[in-house]
């Protein structure tokens, strides 16, 4: 792999860009790997990357039924923040946020991390109390957040109408170090780094069965043949229930569609991320100038990867009061992704009923921000066979034991 640098750009400019290499190899699968990861979204790729980087395990295949990042990783609105309420959440999301700060350098791939600040609007008295509580929790956890008043909100986002009759802005929880990153680049950067370590990133290959002997997985059946493994990692987000069915166990997960849309591009109008949880809308402006808008989730089990009209209407209707200028914008594209929801709105990084099989899922509407931290924790779990401090509380068995990590306030809205 040749390194990307200013010098490389200059050199290629001199020779008509004839020297660029493929960013990653596309090998045919081998018969056997030490570790097979199902799902080349951000979490699967990050898991493989840290298996190699932190544990020296590189005989690894990452198997993807579609294309890299074609699941939720390439469909999300890229909000990165770590202002959750419970300690285990703060630990893993803050680990992830801090890894995002150096990800471009670490991967030698520009993921366009933009710590532009994330603002969560309080538009009811209930939210004001909730976010003040989160601010205090974050102080204890060492996560830097601040509750700010309406005047400061208006100063940071001049296009906002803070005196709406239905949804007045009463304040906001402000995380200055939160922001956004380029979603595809996160998947591509990890894939390139994995490939450089000799791992196999195998696209267009669907896992259709899990073969086990005596409670241990021996291989996965795929559309490109049977692939053996010593350890299996399942990292397929909305399809986790489907893979668990193949492996013979059930998960505390339901899959629903979550959708987003972008407007036509306009000149810079808003340079922070705004989330309005009461109205289930959140918005940022992309580098291309589009307003990126995320909305609510459907309320029924769904694998169709498309959204529904009433949620577009609800989201836009509610956001227009807070951002009157939106009423003049045309929406260009709308899409959906299948998100994996747990009962306590916290993820699962866990052993499974099968001895050598591990699962990472349940990130629901908010796992893009967690990609590097989650990969870090999952790699440790797979390498050692036991969870480390980041993953320990996120076992799938916590539901049986009643040890919920309740993030319905921090994560109840889709982001």
């Amino acid at each position, binding site marked *: 792999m040749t390194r990307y640098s200013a010098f490389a750009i200059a050199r290629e400019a001199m020779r008509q860009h004839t020297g660029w290499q493929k960013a990653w190899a596309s090998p045919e699968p081998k018969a056997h790997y030490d570790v097979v990861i199902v799902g080349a979204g951000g979490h699967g790729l990050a898991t493989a990357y840290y298996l190699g980087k932190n544990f020296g395990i590189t005989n690894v295949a990452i198997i993807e039924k579609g294309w890299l990042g074609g699941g939720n990783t390439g469909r999300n609105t890229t909000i990165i923040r770590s202002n959750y309420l419970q300690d285990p959440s703060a630990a893993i999301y803050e680990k992830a946020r801090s890894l995002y700060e150096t990800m471009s350098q670490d991967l030698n791939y520009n993921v366009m991390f933009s710590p532009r600040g994330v603002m969560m609007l309080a538009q009811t008295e209930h939210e004001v109390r909730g976010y003040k509580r989160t601010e205090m929790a974050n102080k204890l956890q060492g996560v830097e957040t601040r509750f700010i008043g309406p005047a400061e909100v208006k100063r940071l986002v001049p296009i906002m109408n803070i005196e709406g009759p239905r949804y007045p802005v009463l304040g906001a929880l402000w995380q200055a170090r939160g922001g956004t990153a380029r979603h595809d680049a996160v998947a591509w950067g990890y894939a390139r780094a994995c490939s450089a370590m000799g791992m196999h990133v195998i696209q267009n290959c669907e896992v259709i069965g899990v073969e086990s002997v005596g409670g241990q997985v021996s291989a996965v059946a795929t559309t490109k043949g049977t692939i053996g493994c010593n350890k299996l990692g399942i990292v397929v987000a909305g*399809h986790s*229930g*489907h893979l668990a*069915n193949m492996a013979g166990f*059930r*998960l*505390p*997960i*339901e*899959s629903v569609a979550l959708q987003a849309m972008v407007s036509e591009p306009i000149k810079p109008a808003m340079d922070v991320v705004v989330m309005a949880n009461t109205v289930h809308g959140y918005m940022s402006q992309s580098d291309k100038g589009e307003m990126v808008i995320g909305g609510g989730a459907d*309320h*029924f*089990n*769904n*694998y*169709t990867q498309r959204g*529904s*009209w*009433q949620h577009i209407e609800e989201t836009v209707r509610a956001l227009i009061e807070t951002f009157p200028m939106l009423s003049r914008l045309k929406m260009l594209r709308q899409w959906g992704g299948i998100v994996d929801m747990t*009962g306590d709105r916290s993820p699962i990084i866990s052993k499974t009923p099968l001895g050598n099989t591990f699962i990472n899922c349940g990130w629901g509407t908010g796992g893009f921000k967690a990609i590097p931290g989650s990969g870090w924790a999952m790699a440790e779990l797979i390498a050692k066979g036991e969870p480390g401090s980041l993953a320990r509380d996120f076992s799938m068995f916590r*539901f*049986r*034991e009643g040890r919920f990590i309740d993030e319905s306030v921090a994560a109840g809205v889709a982001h």
Partner: protein
Amino acid sequence: MLLLTCPCCGVSAEETEFTNGGEAHLKRFGPGSSDADYEAYMFARKNPRGVHFERWRHAYGCGKWFLMARDTMTLEVYGAYKAQTTEPPADIQAKIKARRPEWEGYK
């Protein structure tokens, strides 16, 4: 947008008139049951890619609960039936089987 017909009052309406109540035909385990049974009842879900039996409520209509078979891949509704039914009616199962021969049954 789903278009549903309530088997209780016969009204056909858009999805927004109804609320979804999750997987149907779960066996209830309450106080005194084992942890594993309680977990299976309360949290573990089939969440299938394909045929799903689920509870719905005609929330902004007659207010009654009912059950329904729907495909989570195509959003096709195979039929709705009364909530006081312990397993999917034979005609709905036959219809599903005809539409999806690979379907393994509702258990």
